[in-house]
C-alpha cells in the first residue's frame, strides 16, 4: 500500500534536503568541536600543572632535554588549510553562478590544498626532535598533530569526492553538497588554527 507514495521522498525540494543535511553536518560538527576543545583543555591543563616538572623534561643522563617544536610549522598548516577554504569558496561561488569551469577548478585546487596540508603535517610530525613518550608536551604535540592528520585525511576524502562529483557534472542542478563541504572546510581551518594557537604556548 505504500508503493504509490514511495516516490514522495523524491518530490522533496532540494533546498529542504539541503537544509536538513546542513543541520545534520552542523550537529556532527558540534561533537567534533567539543572534541577539539577538549584537546585544547588537555594541552593547557597539563601545561599549567607541569606535574613533576615534566611538561618539558630537562636533560638527564639518558636523554636530552625536550625542546618544543618551532610553532611556525603549525601555522603553515593552518595557512594551507585556509587556502583550501578560499579555493573551495571560489568553487562554491562558481556553483552558485552556474559556472561549471570555476567549480571544477576550485574543487581541484581545494583537493590539492588538502593533500599538501596533509603531507606537510606528516612531514612535520616526522621531523620532531622528540618522541611521544618524552613528557607531557611531547604527548600533547602528537595529539594535536594527530587530530590535524585525522581531520585532513577526512578532508582529502571529501575534497576528492567533491572534485570528482563536480567533474561528473552532478552539481549542475543543485549544489547543496558544495555548500556543506564549505562548512566542513571552515571548521577544518578553525580546528587547525586551534592547534596552532595552543602550540604557540610552549
Amino acid at each position, binding site marked *: 500500500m505504500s508503493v504509490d507514495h514511495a516516490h514522495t*521522498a523524491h518530490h522533496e525540494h532540494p533546498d529542504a534536503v539541503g537544509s536538513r543535511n546542513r543541520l545534520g553536518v552542523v550537529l556532527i560538527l558540534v561533537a567534533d568541536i567539543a572534541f577539539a576543545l577538549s584537546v585544547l583543555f*588537555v594541552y593547557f591543563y597539563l601545561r599549567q600543572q607541569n606535574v613533576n616538572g615534566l611538561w618539558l623534561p630537562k636533560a638527564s643522563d639518558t636523554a636530552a632535554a625536550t625542546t618544543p617544536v618551532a610553532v611556525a610549522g603549525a601555522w603553515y598548516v593552518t595557512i594551507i588549510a585556509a587556502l583550501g577554504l578560499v579555493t573551495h569558496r571560489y568553487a562554491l561561488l562558481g556553483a552558485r553562478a552556474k559556472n561549471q569551469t570555476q567549480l571544477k577548478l576550485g574543487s581541484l585546487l581545494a583537493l590539492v590544498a588538502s593533500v599538501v596540508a596533509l603531507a606537510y603535517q606528516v612531514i612535520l610530525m616526522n621531523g620532531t626532535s622528540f618522541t611521544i613518550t618524552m613528557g607531557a608536551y611531547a604527548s600533547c604535540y602528537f595529539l594535536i598533530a594527530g587530530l590535524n592528520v585525522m581531520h585532513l585525511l577526512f578532508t582529502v576524502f571529501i575534497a576528492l569526492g567533491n572534485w570528482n562529483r563536480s567533474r561528473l557534472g552532478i552539481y549542475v542542478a543543485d549544489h547543496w553538497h558544495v555548500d556543506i563541504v564549505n562548512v566542513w572546510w571552515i571548521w577544518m581551518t578553525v580546528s587547525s588554527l586551534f592547534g596552532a594557537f595552543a602550540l604557540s604556548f610552549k
Partner: protein
Amino acid sequence: MTTVTNRPASAGPSAPKKALIERLSIITGLLLGIVGAVLAWYLARTFLPVNTDGSYIKTRMDQEVFIAMIGWFVGFMTGIGALIGPFRWLLGKDLTHDETLFYAGKDQGVKRYFRYTTDHKVVGIQYLVITMVIFFVGGVLAMLIRTNLGHAGGNWLQPQTYNTVVGLHGITMVVGAIIMITGPFGNFIMPIMIGARDMAFPRLNALSFWLVVAAVPPLLSSIWLGGIPTGWSAYNPLENQAPPGMDGFIMAICIFAISTMVAGANITATAVKMRAKGMTWNRTPIFIYGVVASVALALPVFPVFFLSQVLSGLDRATGSTFFDVRGGGSPWLYENLFWIMGHPEVYVILIPALAALMEMAPVFTRRPLFSFNLAIMGIAGISGLSVLVWAHHLYVSGWAPLLNGPFMLTTELISIPTGMLFLVLIGTLWRGRVWITLPTAAIYAVLFNFTIGGITGIYLSDVSADAALHGSIFVTAHFHYTLMGAGLTSAIGALVYWFPKMTGRMFDKKLGWTAFWITQVGFNIAFMGMFMVGLAGQPRRVGAISAFYDKGNSITTMGAYIIMTGMLVLLHGVVVSWVWGTKATQNPWFAKSLEWSVAYPVPLENFDVLPVVTEDAYGYGKAQS
C-alpha cells in the same frame, strides 16, 4: 583496506551492483570482521617493531590488540555495508531509487532485521532487542556480584574476576540505559509521532545501530584478555596497569561514542526539520523534547569521553604520558574528562525516561498534561545545568578544593528543574481519572523511587557529607535508585505502552503485573539494604566484606534474587506477548498522539498522506461548567 574490494563490484553495471548490496548482511559483516581482525593481528605481529625505548607502560601486546580490534571494526563495518554509501558518493554514483528502497528493507521480511536496513521501524526493533540482550548480560553480571557478596568473606569469585565483573556490569548497564529509550522508542515511535516518513538521515540511523553491535565483541573479548579490573570509570593510572582486556573496553567505548554522536545528530535533525505541517513547538509532544534533550546533551559530552579513552589507549599503546605522573601527566585530567561526560550521561538516561512518563500520564488520567511549559523548562534546566556539575565527583580528589563550593551550588540547583518535572507528573495525576494499567503503575513507581534517589543525591552533593559517603556503597544504592528505580522502570512502562504499536500485540497483563510487583519489591529491598551498609561505611566495589556488613549484604543479595525473578518473568512476558499475545487494536489506549493514527503493521513510509496537526496531543478532559 578491505573496502577496496567493494569498488570494482559497485562500479560495475547495474545488475551486479544491486547484487552486492543484497549479499551483504550481518553474516558477511561477521566474516569480514573476523578476517579483518585476524589479518590485522597477523600483520601487527609480523611487522611491528620491537619495543626498545623502555617507556613506562607501552606494550607490544596492547598494540597488537588495538590493531586487531581496528581490523575487526573496519572489516565488520565494510561487511555490513556501511561503506557503500560514502564510496558511492565519492564515485559520484549516488544510490538509485530502487537501491534506496532496498536499503529501507522493502519486501525483505525477517531478513531486513539482519541487514544495514534504514527503515526507522526496523532500527527501533533492532535497538529494542539489543537493549534487552545488553540488560540480560548486565543482569547476569549483577547476580554474580550479589552472589559473591551474599555472605561475609566473599571470595566466591577471584578478586581479578570480581573486579572485571563489576566493571563489565557497570559499562553494559550504562550503555543499555543510555540506549533504552532513545534507541527503541526514539527510533521507532518518534518519527511517527511527529508525522514524518522516516528519520532525517536513514543511513546514519542504520549506522548508529550497527556501531553498537560492532562495539560488543571488543567489550566481550576483554573477558578473555585479562579483564577490566577498573570498574566502568576506568580511572588512570589503574587503567594503565590493567591487562589487555582494558584495550577492549577502550575500543568499545570509542565505537559506542561514535554511535551516540551519529544518533544524536540524526534524532535532533529529525525533530527539528521533519515535524508535520502545523506541529509547532507548542504542539510537539513532550516525549520529543525529552528525546531531543537527551541526544543533544550527549552530542557535546560523549566526544569528551571518547577523548579520555583515546588518551588512555595512547598511553597504553604508544607510551605517551597524558595520565602518567612519571611523564608529566595527571590522573586528575582523566577524572575531569571522564566526569564531564559522566554526569550529563545520567541525565541523558533520565530525561527521556521521565519524558516518556509525561507522555503517558495524560493518556492514563484522561486530562491534559499539567503545565507543558514547566515541563520544557525542567528539561531545559536539567540539560543546561548538567554540564556544570561534574566536579562533585571530585570533591574528595583534592583536585581543586576551592571549586567545591561552586560545584555544590550547581549540583543542588539541579534539584529545582528536577522538581518541576515532579510537579508536572503529580499535577497530571491530580484530579484525573486514573486508569490502572502497567504504564500508570510505572509512573507511580518512578515517583516513589526517584524521590528516594533524588533526596539521597542531596546528601551526596554536600561537600562535608560527601567526605563521609563518597566511595561508599551508599553512592551505588543512590544511583541505582535513579537509573534503575526511575530510569529502567520508566523504560519498562514505555515498553508496555508502545508494545502494541511496535509488535501489533498487547503486553500480557498477568505476566506484566507479576513482573512489576516482584521487581519493585525486590528492588526496594535490595537497595535499602545497600543504603544501610553504605551509611555504615562499606566501600564500593569491594569483593569481600567484613562480618559487620553481613546482614545488610544478605538482605541486598536476597533482594537481588527477587529482582532477578521479576526480570525473568518480564522477559518471559515480552517473548510470550510478542509471539502469542492478543492482537492489538490500532489505538488500544485511546491516545491522541500521531503514532496511534497508523495501523499495525506500520507501512514502509508510515503515512499515506502526511498528517496536518492543528492542536497538541493532550486535548483530554472536558471543560468544567
